[in-house]
């Protein structure tokens, strides 16, 4: 019975089984990448009572929160906070799209709009958010999430131009055109490393009021103008480093980043900021709970914790972007009392220009335009 052949049969089947398993892994990997996450995600039922149901899986930019808040939350509810970071919005979206599970994520408004419309988010039970009324009234109904059904607001900012008065003597003109024409700043000018901000700013300068246009002639013209500006550019940046260390004299910048630069500069009085007459882009972040969040109760508790006045105050002080709560906005007002040009007014927040998500052929048009600018 025991022939040499049958003796070797056992390892052979093993190997075959192994191969099959390995093929399964390979196939699984490819299916994972090909699969439509919408069908993968199962809808969840809402919790009845709010007790923490596990540790908090937190997903945000790095260093974009007062760490004391995370510590305080962990202590109060006796949970751990597992912090994960993304380095840009595309990275965040790709992770959520692929079905990676987080309890709370911090998308920018236009990405929140996409997630809401793609039905990726858990609806919020406002009766469980004791501090919901802390939210600045008009933002209880934000443009990206009518009725704030899926999100609570986080920070808000304007986009403008910052400059260093110790390097620049010639006055600016409150226009986006300053980036193109300021006589002293060629070779020391930076633009934001953000495709919507750069193309949108050029559209505004071209007097195109719709900063989300998908008319290819308008986008091409905006790109052509940026390419004319490019010889003056030293770089693209979305952080405050270059402004703070003097590499940059004139920068396309977010108001919150300007504030952060003030905090680290030796001579903050040399830093200035203007919003421009052709139009003021206003951006904001919010907190959402993805539908596939493993611990939705803990996430709800965290959202409410973030809305508490003391969290709003300490977070606004730490990150330099106002929280969109009554306390947050008041805290910010007093923080920037010395820098009136850094005030973010209610009028700007409510009537500023919003970037909308680019999708389909619009996304192709805009991302191709961005590649042309960067190439």
């Amino acid at each position: 019975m025991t022939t040499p052949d049958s003796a070797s049969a056992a390892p052979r089947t093993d190997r075959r089984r192994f191969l099959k398993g390995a093929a399964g892994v390979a196939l699984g990997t490819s299916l994972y990448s090909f699969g439509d996450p919408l069908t993968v995600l199962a809808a969840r039922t809402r919790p009845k009572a709010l007790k923490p149901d596990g540790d908090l899986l937190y997903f945000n930019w790095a260093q974009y929160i007062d760490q004391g808040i995370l510590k305080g939350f962990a202590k109060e509810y006796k949970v751990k906070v597992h912090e994960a970071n993304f380095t840009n919005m595309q990275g965040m979206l790709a992770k959520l799209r692929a079905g990676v599970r987080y309890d709370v994520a911090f998308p920018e408004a236009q990405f929140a709009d996409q997630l809401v419309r793609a039905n990726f988010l858990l609806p919020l039970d406002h009766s469980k958010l004791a501090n919901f009324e802390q939210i600045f009234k008009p933002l209880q109904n934000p443009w990206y999430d009518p009725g704030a059904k899926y999100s609570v607001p986080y920070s808000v900012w304007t986009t403008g131009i910052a400059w260093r008065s110790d390097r620049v003597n010639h006055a600016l003109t409150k226009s986006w055109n300053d980036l193109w024409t300021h006589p002293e700043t060629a070779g020391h000018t930076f633009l934001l490393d953000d495709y919507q901000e750069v193309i949108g700013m050029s559209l505004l300068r071209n007097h195109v009021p719709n900063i989300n246009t998908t008319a290819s002639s308008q986008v091409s013209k905006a790109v052509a103008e940026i390419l004319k500006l490019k010889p003056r550019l030293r770089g693209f940046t979305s952080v405050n480093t270059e402004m703070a260390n003097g590499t940059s004299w004139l920068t396309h910048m977010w108001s919150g980043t300007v504030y952060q630069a003030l905090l680290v500069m030796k001579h903050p009085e040399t830093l200035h900021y203007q919003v421009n007459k052709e139009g003021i882009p206003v951006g904001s972040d919010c907190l959402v709970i993805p539908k596939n969040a493993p611990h939705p109760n803990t996430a709800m508790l965290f959202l409410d914790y973030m809305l508490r006045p003391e969290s709003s105050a300490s977070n606004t002080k730490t990150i330099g972007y106002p929280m969109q709560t009554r306390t947050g906005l008041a805290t910010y007002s007093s923080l920037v009392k010395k820098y009136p040009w850094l005030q973010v007014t209610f009028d700007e927040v409510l009537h500023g220009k919003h970037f909308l998500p680019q999708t389909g052929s619009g996304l192709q048009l805009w991302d191709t335009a961005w590649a042309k600018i960067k190439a």
Partner: protein
Amino acid sequence: MRKRLWHGFLVPPGVWLLALYVVPLAIVVAVSWATTDFLGSPIYKWPFFGWNTSNYDTVFSYTFVPAFLRSLGFASATTALCLLVGYPVAYVIARYGGRVRHLLVVLLILPWFVDYLIRIYAWIALLGDDGIVNGWLHRLGLGGNPPVQFLGTWWAVVGGLVYSYLPFMVLPVYASVERMDPSLIEAGKDLYGTPWQTFRHVTWPATFQGVVAGSVLVFLPATGDFANSLFLGSPHTAMIGNVINDVFNGGGYWPLGGAISVIFMLGIAGFMVFYLRSAARASQESAL
């Protein structure tokens, strides 16, 4: 039985190659022909029907030619400089290093135990407008206000690339010099060859394989590099890796990034075939 066992050893690398090389590569190609849904996820089409070729039209337009050429130019300059610096270093260590030559090789690659990006940041700390070198220049009265702009130039990028990939040149050349029989050089001298003639007709051909290997190992990662240009360069030094990076991290329209990657890979593959064939021919000729 024994043969089967040996064949069995091929399974893990085979699976590894399939799962981590063939499948991802196929996905990149598939993405390049795809369209995207509302959230930007690729919608794949069955081969040949309904393929979206518009991104290839974009790639073949003039738009990305400067970035392609910059990548090839920077990588060629990097390879040449690595050879110029790396060959003598490898030669001296291998021939005159004596008992400490292994230690010298370890010392040479010691900085590479530190993360790649940290080493690039170190260059920023050294050469930035408010960096250490500008500080020295200022103290010596040799300028510094306004500071000398080292960063943001094409030579800063090439310098960073040379620094990043030098060991890939030194190690293969070192191995080939060490493998060479030193009596060959003595023979060359015995035949009244000048040092240059001996080098040209004996040492160089004997170590040529190491030079070819080193050049490939430096050139390939250098063409695809984006970190050096991102941190040490300016908007005027964008390499093709930067453009691909910007497509994915900007609007995140994957099909365009996929199409640029596919064309870039094909271009580099063609370039490498050409290079290796002419290197093989040169090595045959010099052996004659």
